[in-house]
């Protein structure tokens, strides 16, 4: 492969204005598939099934089989459309998209073409740097997923050089909603970050609606990123590429950035951009050309004669609208205000992806400050060390309980960290661990005084030093007391008691 020239990102932005368009596929988590009663692998209950076990004659496209629309998938699609601020079509139609590919059982995909269920929406997206964009949504339409090919033999796992390919039709017919943005202009240097934040917002929306498991690593959420550049001052959009296979939030940002740099180098050298699909390679952080794509691609769309139009009643649409949860952006604004966080404090929480955990912890009785401290501090550190999701380590209820034990003076921060480790290790709730390990702070002054006496006996000159004004000398006694108490003492109280003794003599 010829070496790909990349232009410096800032230089590229000086010469060209980036325009991005994003297509996000959301796999719905309905119990059954889009057009068949087969169990849906995109629902956690069916995840990880053996190949070709979640199939019916419909999924396999057997002769004589017919699709039937899953009503729950329609309802979830409408909810998603409403959450994207879209109009819901009073009548929409399915169409056949015809092309031959072995993962497509019927050799046509049932999708929506000129009559999508939802259209003309807008999503508010907040970047990590706090900038807010309104991304225009062109449409959201329902369709079915294809099966999955595994290429066997050859070194790359790709079709080139493979000896044979295996087809798993479990995924064939999984309900999808494809959300297509209009061209997004004006993001400038934030275009890569906006692409990432947009997909992250779609994920938040899908999770808040409960319509998808929304795990990118499982393909529940997939993004194709269209990127084009136009020279500064030019009205007309440049030729775009569509980068596929971008399977993490980080790669979305990297892929858009890469395409901007790659296209800028070509254009600046007087070259032309080929309209094509490109594949993102996570390992090399680069894209490579896929299938040439042109507007002349002919899928011979026509209305699906096996299905009736989808005609949701106005009552249903209003019922679903009334049940919509708060939009993620509005919710963030509300929480920030309720919690009294500074911009920076809130941004750190939002960027950590632990907003829901924080909210649940506050709801369980912790102060917002304590909840923030635990989730973005010690829990984040443990999660990082274990390479796990913070939310999988500990429940918000337990974090709230821990924070309350500290608040009440039962635990010091240091003891609380030990208790947290116990919780993560599955030893029980914070209170249970405090009881079992006897970790509570010794608040009996009598026991502390006895320990102080013992420490002073070993270091008789300390009191004199304190009286001479060398207050830091108290540290040695405090350390000895904490050691003797096995850490279960409040160091501040010990210090108070030592100073009282010095002053009293």
């Amino acid at each position, binding site marked *: 492969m010829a070496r790909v020239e990349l232009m410096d990102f800032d230089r590229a932005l000086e010469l060209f204005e980036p325009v991005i368009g994003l297509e996000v596929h959301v796999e719905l988590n309905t119990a059954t598939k889009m057009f068949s009663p087969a169990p849906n692998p995109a629902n956690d209950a069916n995840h990880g099934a053996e190949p070709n076990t979640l199939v019916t*004659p419909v999924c*396999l*496209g*057997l*002769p*004589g*089989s*017919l*699709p*039937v*629309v899953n009503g729950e998938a329609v309802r979830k699609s409408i909810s998603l459309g409403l959450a994207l601020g879209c109009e819901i079509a009073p009548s929409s139609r399915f169409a*056949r998209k*015809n092309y*031959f590919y*072995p993962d497509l*059982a*019927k*050799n*046509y995909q049932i999708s929506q073409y000129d009559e999508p269920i939802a259209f003309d929406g807008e999503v508010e997206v907040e970047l990590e740097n706090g900038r807010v964009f309104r991304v225009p949504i062109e449409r959201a339409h329902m369709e079915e997923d294809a099966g999955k090919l595994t290429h066997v033999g050859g070194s790359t796992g790709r079709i080139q050089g493979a000896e044979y*390919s295996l*087809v798993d039709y479990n995924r064939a017919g999984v309900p999808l909603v494809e959300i297509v943005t209009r061209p997004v202009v004006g993001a400038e240097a934030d275009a890569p970050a906006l692409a990432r934040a947009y997909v992250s917002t779609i994920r938040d929306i899908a999770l808040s609606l409960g319509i998808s498991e929304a795990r990118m690593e499982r393909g529940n959420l997939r993004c194709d990123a269209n990127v084009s550049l136009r020279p500064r001052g030019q009205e007309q959009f440049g030729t775009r590429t569509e980068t596929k296979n971008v399977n993490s939030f980080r790669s979305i940002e990297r892929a858009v950035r890469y395409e901007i740099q790659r296209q800028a180098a070509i254009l600046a050298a007087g070259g032309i951009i080929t309209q094509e699909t490109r594949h993102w390679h996570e390992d090399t952080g680069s894209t490579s050309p896929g299938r040439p794509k042109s507007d*002349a691609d*002919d899928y*011979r*769309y*026509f209305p699906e*004669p*096996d*299905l*009736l139009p989808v005609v949701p009643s106005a009552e249903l649409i209003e019922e679903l609208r009334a049940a919509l949860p708060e939009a993620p952006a509005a919710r963030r604004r509300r929480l920030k205000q309720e919690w009294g966080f500074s911009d920076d404090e809130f941004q750190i929480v939002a960027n950590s992806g632990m907003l829901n955990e924080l909210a649940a912890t506050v709801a369980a009785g912790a102060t917002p400050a304590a909840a923030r401290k635990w989730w973005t501090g010690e829990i984040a550190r443990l999660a990082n060390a274990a390479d796990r999701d913070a939310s999988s380590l500990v429940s918000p209820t337990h974090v709230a309980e821990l924070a309350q034990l500290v608040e009440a003076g039962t635990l010091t921060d240091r003891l609380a960290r030990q208790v947290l480790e116990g919780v993560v290790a599955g030893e029980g709730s914070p209170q249970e661990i405090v009881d079992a390990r006897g970790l509570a702070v010794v608040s009996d002054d009598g026991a502390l005084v006895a320990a102080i006496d013992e420490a002073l006996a070993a270091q008789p000159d300390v009191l004199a030093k304190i009286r001479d004004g060398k207050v830091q000398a108290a540290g040695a006694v405090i350390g000895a007391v904490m050691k003797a108490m096995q850490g279960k003492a409040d160091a501040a109280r010990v210090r108070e008691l030592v100073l009282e003794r010095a002053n009293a003599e």
Partner: protein
Amino acid sequence: MSHGDELIRLSAADLAGRLAAGDVSSVEATQAHLDRIGAVDGAVHAFLHVAGERALDTAADIDRRRAAGESLGELAGVPIAIKDVLVTEGMPSTSGSRILEGWIPPYDATPVRKVREAGLVPLGKTNMDEFAMGSSTEHSAYGPTHNPWDLERIPGGSGGGSAAAVAAFEAPLALGSDTGGSIRQPAHVTGTVGVKPTYGAVSRYGSIALASSLDQIGPVTRTVLDAALLQDVIAGHDPHDSTSIADPWPSMADAVRRADVAGLRIGVVKELDSEGFQAGVRQRFHEALDLLERHGAEIVEVSTPNFEHAIAAYYLILPAEASSNLAKFDSVRFGLRVTPEGGGTVEQVMSATREAGFGPEVKRRIILGTYALSAGYYDAYYGSAQKVRTLVQRDFESAFANVDVLATPTAPTTAFKLGEKLDDPLAMYLNDVATIPANLAGVPGISLPVGLAPEDGLPVGIQFLAPARQDARLYNVGGALEQLLLAEWGGPLLDRAPALTTHELLATEEGAV
């Protein structure tokens, strides 16, 4: 006449009566039909697959259940033949194509399931033009079926196998499918009864799709009452077919039993009563109308000016849908697989399989349909055809504003000779001129015999059409006319068909699978 010969000539209703009375067992009736198939099907070649053992097991089961006093369906124990377009669990289902040779479906089509649940006894699968594309069975990959009236002639198509099986007394009942006349035109040329119900009356689930918006499953029988009894079994909503009608249906058998044409307004379609139709076909058609008029029906002329464009629209819509429906035959999951010499990519294997597995008529229509749906041509072809379809529907609406049913000859000519039109696709397509409008509009139609054409002694059918969901009107007028004609003839028209002999069987061995 032996006991078996007597059993096979009974109507399904009469046979069902004998079964219910305990005069005869389902095993006896089934064996009689299997014997008949053994004796004549070498000559007729109505069947692609005969499931003799399984049929006898099913029949024995019905006999046991009847003996145990179980309450059974009206047609329980009566044998039935099934067009190979319907998938049958554990039985080959080829749709007349090489590309599905050897495929055994894992499930039953809904009409087949209903037939089984009603206790009928499937005898096997009947021949058809490949993927139901044709009017003669000559496009079957497994050789043509022969018309029992004259073995040198076509039995109609695509469902010539079902019609011939019924006409040759190999089965009292059969299931067919009608996309542009594939039930009615074979009925016309074989002197039998065929009904295309309202679109959506019978589930299409498990019917190997030709054109989804036109296909409809229906009964093929020797009497109007038998057709009604069978439609009562197979009709009704199916959650597996979104286009099946949810509302319940009245009994079609009741409509036949109460048949009365007094005051019925029958519209004669002017455009389908023309010089282009064979003289003897028109003569028998008008005699039948006169007979109805004498018994109280009112005959009026109606015009349907857009019917003349129906064939053109049909031959765009059908290939367009078919080109997409037939894309699944790619060797990946079922059916034939042809690997090019030295191996090949999956695209090359798909291509080689489709090249070898599809016959010329199927390829012709796939190419036509692919073209009609192509970008830049869609509006001119598929789009325009849909507009014509709407106009045809309006013609029906305005006609039915004035009349209860419409009447036409079912097809322009009596059975033509095998091979006569094989090289002339257009002439073959014109066979369906009178039957296609009903499919475009989704309305029901029936064809029943009205006599033999004087010039060639071959059967002629009359077609009645009714508004959508008014299938009962067809059974009313059809049942009434049938009784009037039987009285005139003194017996069924099929009694006049030549006897099929083993001599003829030997003469047409090429028909054997």
